[in-house]
């Protein structure tokens, strides 16, 4: 049953880096299989934040004094780390936001203001609400059309249908997830970029999941916007990233107004600061940015390729083990996928499964996973979801499968 192929890297030594993993839940060892909702934090991230607040903290940018300069250096240094992570052309292309949601809303308000009312935004059936609702709000504000590319039975994007939806040249922006938080599907980003660009549209990729699980190269993909969120990448809450091509950031109007994003202010007229500062109004999440920097150092030292291989091994093992649980149906069987597995069990409600797993120390998520339209697409109301991180082991997956077996016999 221990189906891990020999090429799967062993990362079990990393568990010691995550203090929370030694907690017990209701008297049981903590089996955390909810990383897709938010990942746990390694000590290096916690320590970077603590160190800042204990030894080297002041507001950034505005101060001439030692503490402020040093804090600004640490803050700005993280822009280079993010640029390297995504292979961005320059550090000026990196905008710090509060989360992925904050980043997508920034684009919807700012780039959205540049779209003409007769243009359309194209999303897909497998988007997270964060990549649906901002566009609905833009539609209702500005009159643009919202188009939805279908997902096939396997849980893959229907590229043919997508091409048809692009054909009239009226789509100004394609906004698609790079990896589904429900199905695990990794979308063919470079191919979508080609399709979008051929139709005169730009491409935003929601990398909230993908950036955590695999190497991302925005240049090789040919994307125009890319977003991710710190707390899923083993980093702090309260910090997200928008990457966009420099020329786009230059052309876009600011989103929020306030300190640090202005050139000069008079009551008649204000001018904007250079990008990326134009988009960072007010005191930024300073300590959180520094913590994100530590998280990026941490995953880069492991290697995103290694992380991807590790999770591929886990996913393969999990699909085999879960597939053997009676009545269990995995939702989504994309050929390219990451370590997120949604499932239903005949005769057992997802919430009951989650509660009984929790009773046994195992944390999974149950519900619609902020993807109601996708639930409708598959004719279900909710799923249970197990998702993996760098600290997940095959033993944990085995505990999950064994416990599911027992729960099923108990409930059904």
């Amino acid at each position: 049953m221990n189906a891990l192929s020999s090429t799967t890297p062993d990362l079990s030594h990393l568990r010691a880096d995550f203090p929370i993993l030694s907690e017990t839940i209701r008297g049981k060892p903590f089996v955390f299989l909810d990383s897709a909702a938010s990942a746990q934090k390694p000590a290096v991230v916690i320590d970077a934040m603590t160190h800042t607040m204990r030894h080297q903290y002041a507001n950034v940018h505005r101060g001439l004094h030692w503490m402020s300069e040093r804090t600004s250096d640490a803050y700005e240094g993280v822009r280079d780390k993010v640029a390297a992570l995504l292979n961005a052309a320059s550090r000026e292309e990196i905008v710090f936001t509060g989360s992925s949601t904050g980043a997508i809303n920034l684009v919807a308000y700012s780039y959205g203001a540049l779209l003409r009312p007769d243009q359309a935004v194209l999303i897909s059936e497998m988007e997270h609400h964060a990549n649906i609702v901002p566009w609905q709000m833009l539609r209702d504000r500005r009159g643009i059309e919202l188009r939805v590319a279908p997902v096939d039975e396997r849980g893959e994007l229907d590229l043919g249908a997508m091409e048809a939806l692009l054909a009239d040249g009226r789509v100004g922006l394609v906004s698609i997830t790079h990896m589904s938080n429900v199905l695990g599907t990794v979308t063919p980003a470079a191919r979508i970029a080609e399709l979008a660009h051929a139709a005169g549209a730009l491409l935003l990729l929601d990398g909230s999941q993908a950036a955590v699980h695999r190497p991302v190269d925005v240049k090789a993909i040919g994307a125009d916007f890319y977003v991710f969120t710190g707390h899923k990448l083993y980093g702090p809450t309260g910090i997200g990233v928008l990457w966009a091509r420099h020329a786009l950031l230059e052309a876009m109007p600011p989103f929020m107004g306030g300190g640090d994003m202005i050139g000069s202010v008079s009551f008649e007229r204000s001018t904007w600061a250079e990008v990326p500062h134009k988009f960072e109004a007010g005191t930024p999440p300073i300590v959180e940015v520094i913590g994100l920097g530590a998280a990026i150092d941490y995953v880069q030292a492991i290697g995103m390729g290694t992380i991807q291989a590790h999770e591929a091994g886990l996913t393969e093992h999990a699909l085999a083990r879960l597939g053997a649980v009676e009545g269990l149906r995995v939702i989504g069987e994309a050929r390219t996928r990451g370590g997120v597995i949604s499932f239903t069990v005949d005769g057992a409600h997802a919430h009951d499964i989650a509660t009984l797993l929790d009773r046994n120390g195992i944390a999974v998520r149950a519900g619609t996973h902020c993807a109601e339209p996708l639930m409708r697409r598959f004719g279900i109301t909710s799923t249970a979801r197990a998702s993996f991180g760098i600290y997940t082991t095959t033993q944990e997956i085995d505990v999950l499968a064994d416990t599911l077996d027992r729960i099923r016999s108990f409930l059904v």
Partner: protein
Amino acid sequence: MSEAALQADASIYQQLVVERARRPLHAGTVEPADGAADGTNPLCGDTVHVTLRRDPGGRAVAVRHRTRGCAICAAAADLMAETVQGATRNEAEAVFGRFQRLLQDGETALDAETRRQLGLLNAFGELHGYRSRRKCAILPWSALLAAFKSGEDA
């Protein structure tokens, strides 16, 4: 499958809960009804449809539910229907109040008299350690109270 593990499962999903979820005794609709209402949990999409008939004194002489939901919700609906059989709206509200205290504070926080009054509903005693599931047990009650009200307004 160890005995201890099974017991752990059973501490939250007591035999009675699992049984009533599987084979409810009070499922269906009262026809004709003097009151009917739906309860929906937008977070999970679960729904409970409650119908009831009342005697001239306002007592619910028949209560039925149709539930599409989790085991907690389905069992709570069925045990609710059983418990409020013959109750007035005021009496049902009093039972609901006790039930909420059970979910909120747990069995040990209640006095013996309250626990006695709760009867079958004590099966949900361990839910108080599972805050996010309490609303599953409460959903049928919101539907019941709305059904009482709909009957009176009509």
